[in-house]
């Protein structure tokens, strides 16, 4: 293996691992979003039912359905991407040790990565938007919760109430940060591959010439 192919091998390995990692994080966040959305809505339904506050119930049901629907769509989309990335990862690992990998093996993996991106690009663009929206939503929710917690703190909250309040705030802001990370990583992935697709189109002119036109 030459220095160039060694470098390319390392880059491909690193990119496959990064893409797999961000997709798994994305899947976890989608599952958490569904759980939290449904939990928030259902935690409003029972007290509203007990208090006879019928106006809140349909609204809470709607919130639960919307949150659940978005999360299910998100989970299915992410699983589709994860399946493709997992296939590429399996194929790359099946090539064996680095020294035995040929240029053709590397090119095959590159072709698969490019083909996968072309197919999944619309879904990835959508997930970028949804994760950005999720980040904003949780950040705003965190600010509101922080304000509410501050009022409780001034009223003299202490002990377990203080701890759970702080933990809740940390969790919300961590989720906002995680959503933002997913958004930025998919944005980076999309930017890099859009550039490669563009460059690839220019390469096709060279291939067309080598074939004496099509």
């Amino acid at each position: 293996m030459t220095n160039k192919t060694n470098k390319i091998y390392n880059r491909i390995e690193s990119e496959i691992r990064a893409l797999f990692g961000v997709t798994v994080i994305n899947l976890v966040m989608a599952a958490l979003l569904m759980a939290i959305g449904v939990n928030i809505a259902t935690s409003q339904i029972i007290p509203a039912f007990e208090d006879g506050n019928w106006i809140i119930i349909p609204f809470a049901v709607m919130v639960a359905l919307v949150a659940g629907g978005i999360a299910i769509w998100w989970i299915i989309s992410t699983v589709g991407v994860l399946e493709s990335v997992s296939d590429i990862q399996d194929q790359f690992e099946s090539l064996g040790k680095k020294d035995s990998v040929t240029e053709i093996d590397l090119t095959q993996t590159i072709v698969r990565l490019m083909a996968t991106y072309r197919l999944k690009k619309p879904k990835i663009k959508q997930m970028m938007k949804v994760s950005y929206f999720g980040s904003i939503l949780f950040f705003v929710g965190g600010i509101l919760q922080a304000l509410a917690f501050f009022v409780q703190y001034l009223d003299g909250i202490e002990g377990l109430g203080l701890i759970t309040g702080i933990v809740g705030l940390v969790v919300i802001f961590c989720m906002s940060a995680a959503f933002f990370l997913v958004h930025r990583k998919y944005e980076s992935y999309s930017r890099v591959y859009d550039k490669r697709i563009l460059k690839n189109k220019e390469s096709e002119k060279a291939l067309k010439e080598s074939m004496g036109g099509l």
Partner: protein
Amino acid sequence: MKGRRTQYEIYWEILVFCREPRTFTSIINRCDLNSKKGQEYLAFLNKKQYLDIKEEKNKTYTTNQSGRDYISIFNKLYLNLFDERPGFKL
């Protein structure tokens, strides 16, 4: 293979697989093509004289030197895509 390949990528996959003599069925299975598309692509590659066809017991397709030159050009172009920064990192 799941994904959206360009026609050049499919040509490359066929030519790489046909470095050894291959039958039509094995080509379409390996390169994930339907029968009609497989025939079109093989007819094109044959017209460009990238494949040698032998009709002995079974009809087989083998990549010739012109086909191997295409493979080399394609490898070089695609490896260059990943040779340049930036890459994608977590």
